[in-house]
């Protein structure tokens, strides 16, 4: 039973560039959430996707956008990268619509470095 998989593992980008991170949820899960974890900090909620729609969003600028595909996989896009976007990006999947409070399963994250 495959867990949550994220790609790539590491990524280095230059300021102003755009990046796309990918996430495949745990088998059977249909909800995907994204978190940003700066070095030495706890993760911060970016947004959540269910039924291919953004259902909830944290306090992140519009440079952060996402998408969920019919197979429940998801992408996180960040435009006009800033040095402060350097972080570990975690994807978490769960079963059922927002509010069901089913357990979150996290991936190993993508480490993004912006230079």
């Amino acid at each position, binding site marked *: 039973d495959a867990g949550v998989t994220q790609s790539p593992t590491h990524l280095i980008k230059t300021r102003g560039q755009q990046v796309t991170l990918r996430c495949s949820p745990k088998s059977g899960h249909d909800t995907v959430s994204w978190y940003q974890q700066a070095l030495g900090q*706890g993760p911060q909620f970016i947004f*959540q996707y269910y039924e291919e729609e953004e259902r909830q969003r944290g306090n992140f600028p519009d440079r952060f956008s996402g998408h969920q595909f019919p197979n429940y996989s998801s992408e996180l896009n960040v435009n006009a990268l800033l040095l402060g976007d350097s972080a570990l990006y975690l994807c*978490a999947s769960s079963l059922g619509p927002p*509010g069901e409070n089913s357990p979150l399963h996290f*991936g190993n*994250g993508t480490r993004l470095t912006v230079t």
Partner: protein
Amino acid sequence: AQTVTQSQPEMSVQEAETVTLSCTYDTSESNYYLFWYKQPPSRQMILVIRQEAYKQQNATENRFSVNFQKAAKSFSLKISDSQLGDTAMYFCALLNNQAGTALIFGKGTTLSVSS
């Protein structure tokens, strides 16, 4: 605003000893969940234990137990018989029942277990 505070940035303990990690939180909601997550160097966030706010009984999972003091808004994690594999960053997290899966994390406590 909802907040989670972990006041111990680092803790260390020897194998077989017991250690307690502290967490306080603030929320105006009456229905919420509290979690402890473990993040080893592999970066994957692993659920350790979960507590529903409406349950008075403290949750227990093998060597892990919590002391949930609702009135004091305190949620500490006790690890008994510490093992080398418990070395990790530990995050306390809060989920408002109305907030989908938008977990609010503390800044974490780095736990080192030595032989």
